[in-house]
């Protein structure tokens, strides 16, 4: 009799849990990635390159990575929330003929590091210190050509720096003046294509290129922040050239400068040739500014990815409390593929504060149309956290594994009440 009573009580509890499991979507954040509608024009879309066909779900506790050793410190803090690239240098293309005549390079501080390389990695040309001549503002100077002050392509390759064998790098004296460096090298084939990299580690002038996020959907406006400064003073760029380059480097789109000095492209484009996992789009910026008669020249590159809106969460979210957390999310797709969902699950502690319970990832192959992906966090993981309802799902991401796209991202996504 007593056993029957227990079974009835347990069943009632389960039913009550079902009855009270309530999942609600939270309002989208300002920096969330989300498609209003799916792209129907998917003729150029690469076929999905996924190899796995079985659904896989995996969940773990956030403190699992700290087990076994005394903790000294975690990962390097990220300096800026906004993805940013910085530069203290620039590149110039030249030929052997140009170098025979002398190439002029603006230098904003002493101690510049110069690298000359053949553009063709297989080139066998001989670059040597003996054939070089250097002058700054018309006066001959010497680089610090000691055993440590000059490196050949072979020396740099031994360090893992993947330069062509036909390379030569050296540093100008730290006492050398800023101004116009003229660099010449005799004896190279006139048509030989070369690249000269000028890096100015001693220069206070640093250029920065930033973007609110590195994942965008096609058609979104791209707005890059560009600055050149030394931490106290900001220089006004005198000239700017900027383009967005496709992952296969076959296409480019010019970026224009708006009234605020930002670089913009009205609608993020998609490359004509789409290939899964080929790499990222890149913004390239080439800019110059003047300060007290000196030219500060900088090149910048920032990577980003542009995805067509081929899938999104369709608003369906159900929690089936069958022991642990079992969250079913509806996904709408315009093409078949293997889709992955990432989620951080937060739970509430005794003081009412939300704390991380688990990270869960789930992936499945979905056909075009309406489908669903189930996220499961086991009862043991949930119980060991000591946290309970209300739960919150944060940093919810929808990814396409077979084409390497991030399709939706929500910083605060769902609240689950039990």
């Amino acid at each position, binding site marked *: 009799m007593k056993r029957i009573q227990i079974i009835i009580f347990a069943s009632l509890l389960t039913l009550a849990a079902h009855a009270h499991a309530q999942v609600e979507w939270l309002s989208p954040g300002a920096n969330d990635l989300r498609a209003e509608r799916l792209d129907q024009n998917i003729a150029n879309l690469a076929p999905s390159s996924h190899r796995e066909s079985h659904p896989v779900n995996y969940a773990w506790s956030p403190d699992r990575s700290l087990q076994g050793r005394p903790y000294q410190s975690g990962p390097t*803090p990220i300096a800026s929330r906004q993805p940013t690239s910085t530069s203290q240098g620039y590149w110039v293309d030249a030929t052997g003929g140009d170098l025979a005549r002398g190439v002029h390079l603006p230098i904003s501080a002493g101690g510049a590091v110069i690298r000359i390389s053949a553009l063709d*990695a297989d080139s066998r040309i001989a670059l040597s210190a003996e054939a070089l001549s250097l002058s700054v503002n018309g006066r001959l100077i010497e680089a610090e050509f000691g055993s440590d002050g000059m*490196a050949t392509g072979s020396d740099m390759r031994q360090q893992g720096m993947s330069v062509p064998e036909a390379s030569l790098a*050296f540093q100008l004296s730290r006492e050398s003046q800023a101004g116009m460096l003229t660099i010449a090298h005799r004896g190279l084939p006139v048509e030989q294509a070369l690249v000269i990299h000028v890096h100015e580690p001693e220069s206070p002038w640093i250029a920065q290129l930033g973007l609110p996020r590195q994942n965008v959907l096609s058609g979104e406006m791209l707005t890059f922040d560009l600055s050149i400064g030394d931490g106290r003073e900001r220089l006004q760029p005198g000239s700017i050239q900027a383009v967005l380059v496709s992952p296969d480097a076959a296409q480019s789109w010019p970026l224009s400068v708006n009234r605020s000095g930002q670089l913009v492209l009205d609608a993020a484009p998609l490359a004509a040739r789409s290939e899964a996992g080929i790499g990222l789009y890149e913004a*390239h910026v080439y800019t110059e500014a003047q300060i007290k008669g000196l030219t500060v020249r900088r090149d910048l590159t920032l990577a980003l990815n542009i995805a067509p809106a081929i899938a999104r969460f369709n608003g369906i979210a159900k929690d089936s409390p069958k022991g642990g957390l079992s969250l079913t999310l509806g996904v709408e797709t315009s093409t078949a593929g293997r889709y992955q969902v990432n989620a951080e699950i937060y739970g509430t502690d005794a003081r009412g504060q939300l704390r991380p319970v688990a990270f869960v990832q789930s992936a499945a192959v979905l056909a075009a149309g309406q489908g669903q992906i189930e996220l499961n966090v086991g009862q043991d993981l949930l119980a060991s956290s000591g946290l309970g309802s209300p739960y919150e799902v944060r940093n919810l991401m929808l990814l396409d594994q077979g084409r390497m796209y991030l399709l939706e991202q929500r910083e605060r996504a769902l609240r689950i009440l039990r």
Partner: protein
Amino acid sequence: MFRLAQALCLVVLLTVSGAAWSATGVAFVHGTGKATDALNDYWTADMVNSVRSGLPNQSNYVVINCDFEQYMWDSRASGCLATQLHNFITSRGITDLVVLTHSNGGNVMRWILSNPTWDSRYPTIIQATRWVNALAPSSLGTPLADAVMAGNVFEASLGWLLGYQNDAVRMQQTSWMAYYNATWLLGTAGRPSLPTGFWNVVGSDVPAAIWNGAAYCGGYQYQVGLAITKLWLNSCSDGFLECTSQRGAGSLWFIDEQRTRRGRNLSHHQSRRDCHDLDVILRNDL
């Protein structure tokens, strides 16, 4: 007397059963490059043999040979690594795997740890892994990759940007790694932690002077270009990677001089060799 015998039996049982339950193994995962004989070409037999001598069963080791000139998600990179780790784990019954990665090998391993749903073999690998000892991992990329990739796109044709370098070098540009860390990889600041420990060993300086005996460990020829390559990096580096990148994901295990013999530094090349007692530290960790 009877109680003493009982206690002794219990100790013996616990020891024997403990050994039977847990089979410890070690895997050596190389960095950028297409390896066919990483034992000799990348790690050296001295390093591998010294480390594996710390195993209860010294044959429980594997030296990975894959094509890490590809992007980390490529089947020739993480797919190949997963195949070799999975075969090692299942064929030898490994339940307690310590993975030693060097440089970009850390990124390929972190791909597997970060994307357990990518391949149904990944969860088996993750479950068997005690932790990863990441020797000088390029978790945030390196300015040296930026320096060799970029050219002036406004002067040259765009096509050479692709042909000039392999995909692994492209991927290790700093803004590329920022993208992958924020999207596909875990363990960096502000991102979820990895499902297993990823413990960094950080090389913080380089002995390049010819009169410095420490510079000769692993071959002096590997130290010659350091004075120049360091100029692209900030003051804390191993000659190829800044400390911030080496500590960019996971947790710090130690900075070279905290543990090495006489507090010596490990250049990027030396952190894959039996230099300055690194092999002993790794052996004692098994």
